[in-house]
């Protein structure tokens, strides 16, 4: 999954570099969400807080 996300970053880089602004920004948002999703898969209940 991590490798795919890095390749998504590269696709974003290429899209922005070739003038495809909307595609590049869309891929950037997808990249952000993918990174967030990956972070969510690594969340455990190890840290539990009470407020």
């Amino acid at each position, binding site marked *: *999954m*991590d*490798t795919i*996300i*890095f*390749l998504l*970053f*590269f696709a*974003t*880089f290429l899209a*922005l*570099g070739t*003038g495809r602004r909307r595609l*590049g*920004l869309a891929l*950037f948002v997808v*990249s*952000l969400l993918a*990174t*967030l999703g*990956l*972070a969510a*898969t*690594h969340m455990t209940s*190890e*840290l539990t807080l009470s407020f």
Partner: protein
Amino acid sequence: MTHRLGFWIAHFNIVAVGAVLLGAFGVQFLEGEYPCPLCIMQRMGMLLCLLGPAYIIMRARHGDVPAADFATGYGMSVVAAVLGAAIAGRQILLHILPNDPGYGAPMFGLHLYSWSFVVFTVVLLVSGVNLMFAAQLTPQGVHYGWPSRLTLALLALLILSNAVAVFFEEGLHWTMPGEPTRYELLYDLGWQ
């Protein structure tokens, strides 16, 4: 002159954070410390931060950079830095209790995830200052030459090298172990 300064600040952003990412490779391959999943995600956050300044530099190929694109670039950095800081902050909190050895060896008194949090904070500050003074810093009358191509090539190389490095560490598994002790691809192939 300040419009050229804004252009070179974008280059400096990429080179400075790029140096941090190269340092991370140094810790991985020279010190033999395997990056954990959270460490990899912080590298992702840093690379995402750099796509903003890269976009600004790329826009300069076509002449003066519109203010909207300048704002878009630093907006991208801000959002990515918030995500990266959250991930770094989580790793700090996981090891914040007294007598916790932390993950990896400390460098200059702080663990790498603490330094990562500092990096993301600096990115936020630099992006904020650039946005505040966008009228003076938006690149105008700049030349997209070999320094710009070299800087963008550095970023491309960092993204691809991280993709390769994590492929070796993760192998063909969907996720990495929480505390990696080997390169899964080499282990699965019987080479480690």
